[in-house]
C-alpha cells in the first residue's frame, strides 16, 4: 500500500481495515519501533483541532519521526491567499508524508491528486475523518473481540455527525443491529438508513435514552451542539434527554463499552468516568496506535 493516501473510509476494503487494526495492535504491544527515523511528517491544520493534531504528532514522535507544520490557517501562507494546490506542492517537497485537516470538503482528495507524497485526511469539513473511524473500529474490536453481530447505540447528533456516519458505513458490513437515539430534528439522514435497508441491516430509532440500552454492546455518544438548533428553546427542551448517567448502566451487559470521540461537554455525566464500561479515554489512546499503524502503512514501512 506504499504511497497510498488515506482520504475516505469508503476507499477501504474489509481487508484494509484488518491490516491497519492488526498493525495498531502490534504497536500497542510494542510501541518502541523507530520506523519514522529520518522521516519528516507535515502536519497541516488549516483549521484548529487540538486533539487530532496532538494524537498524530504523538504518533510521529513515538515512531521517531519529526513534525513540521501549523495548527491554524492564520499561521500559514493560506492567509496570504496561496491556493491549497500550491501549499501542497511546496510542502510535498519538504516532507515524506502530509497529514491535513481542512474546512473545505474534498480538499484532501484534491491534495492527493496534486502531491506525490501520501496524504492522510485528518478531517475535511463535514465529509470524512477516516483515522477517527479506524480508531473507533480498533476500539470496538479490542473490547468486543470482533466486529461481527454487534448491537450499537449511536446517540446525539446523528444528522451532522461525520463520525457516526463513517462508523455506520464501516460497521454495516459486519451484520450489526443499530439503535439511533437523537432529537427528531437531528435524526440519521435517510441516505444512510436507505443504505442499511439495501444491506438488510436492522435499525431502530428512539427519542430518548432508556432501558433499551440494556441490550447494547457499544454506546457511542456524540455531542448535541446548541448551534444546530435554530430556536434555542428547542435545544433547552431536548438537551437533558441525551445525557448518559451512571445509574442508567446498572442493568447493562457486562461487555458494554461507552465510546465518545471527545471533546465531551455534558452528554456523558462525569460519574460514568469511574465505571469500567467507560472507554472514551482508552479510545483516545488507541488513536495514537491506530495513527502509527496508518502512517507506517502509507509509507510502506510495515
Amino acid at each position, binding site marked *: 500500500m506504499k504511497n497510498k493516501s488515506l482520504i475516505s473510509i469508503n476507499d477501504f476494503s474489509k481487508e484494509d481495515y484488518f491490516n491497519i487494526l492488526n498493525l495498531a495492535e502490534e504497536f500497542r504491544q510494542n510501541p518502541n519501533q523507530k520506523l519514522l527515523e529520518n522521516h519528516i511528517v507535515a502536519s497541516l491544520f488549516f483549521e484548529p483541532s487540538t486533539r487530532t493534531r496532538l494524537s498524530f504528532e504523538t504518533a510521529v514522535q513515538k515512531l521517531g519521526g519529526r513534525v513540521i507544520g501549523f495548527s491554524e490557517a492564520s499561521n500559514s501562507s493560506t492567509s496570504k491567499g496561496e*491556493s491549497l*494546490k500550491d501549499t501542497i506542492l511546496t510542502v510535498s517537497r519538504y516532507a515524506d508524508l502530509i497529514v491535513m485537516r481542512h474546512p473545505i*470538503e*474534498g480538499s484532501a482528495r484534491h491534495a492527493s491528486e496534486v502531491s506525490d507524497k501520501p496524504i492522510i485526511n485528518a478531517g475535511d469539513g463535514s*465529509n470524512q475523518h477516516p483515522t477517527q473511524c479506524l480508531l473507533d473500529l480498533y476500539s470496538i474490536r479490542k473490547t468486543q473481540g470482533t466486529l461481527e453481530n454487534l448491537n450499537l447505540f449511536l446517540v446525539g447528533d446523528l444528522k451532522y455527525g461525520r463520525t457516526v456516519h463513517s462508523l455506520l458505513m464501516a460497521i454495516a458490513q459486519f451484520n450489526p443491529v443499530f439503535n439511533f437515539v437523537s432529537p427528531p430534528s437531528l435524526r440519521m439522514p435517510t441516505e444512510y438508513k*436507505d443504505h442499511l435497508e439495501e444491506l438488510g441491516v436492522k435499525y431502530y430509532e428512539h427519542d430518548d435514552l432508556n432501558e433499551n440500552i440494556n441490550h447494547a454492546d457499544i454506546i457511542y455518544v456524540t455531542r448535541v451542539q446548541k448551534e444546530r438548533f435554530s430556536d434555542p428553546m428547542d435545544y433547552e427542551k431536548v438537551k437533558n434527554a441525551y445525557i448518559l448517567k451512571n445509574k442508567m448502566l446498572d442493568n447493562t451487559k457486562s461487555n458494554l463499552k461507552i465510546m465518545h470521540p471527545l471533546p465531551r461537554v455534558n452528554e456523558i455525566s462525569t460519574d460514568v468516568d469511574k465505571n469500567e464500561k467507560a472507554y472514551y479515554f482508552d479510545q483516545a489512546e488507541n488513536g495514537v496506535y491506530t495513527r502509527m499503524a496508518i502512517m507506517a502503512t502509507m509509507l510502506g514501512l510495515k
Partner: protein
Amino acid sequence: MKSELTVKAIENGTVIDHIQAENLYKIISIIGIEQIETEVFIGNNLDSKKYGKKAIIKIADKFPSMDDVNKIALIDPNAVINIIKDFKVVEKKQVVLPEKIKKFVKCINPKCITNHEDVETSFKVVKKDGKIGLKCYYCEKVTGQNNIEIIK
C-alpha cells in the same frame, strides 16, 4: 403534419429529437450551441403524441461525439439523436447515461473544493428510485437531477 417538417429540414447534420419541451434550454446550454457556426434550427412546444409538447434541435454539418451526446442523457434520457445525410436519417441513436461526468456540471455543495479552487468537477452517476444523481468525487455529496447546473 409530421413535426419534423415544422422545422426546416437539413441536408446533412444532426437532429436531436424527442426532447421534452421543458428540457430544451438546459440541453442547449449543455451542447454549447452558441459556439456552433453552422445553421441551427430549434423548434419548441411542438405537438407530440408521446409527450404532449416536445422540442427539436437541428444542427447542419455537425456530427457530435458520443461523449457530448451522452451528456444529454443527464437532462433527458429519452432524447434521440438522428444523423442526417442527403436529407435522410442514416443512423438513430438513443442517448446513454455515462458512468462518469467531468467538468461541465457544478457540485451543489457550497463547501466543496470544486467551488473554492480551480479544480474540475468529477462525478459518478448514481441512480436512486429511477432518479439520477451525481456523486462528487471530491466532497462525496450527491447533486440531484433537479439541481444540475451547467458550468459555462
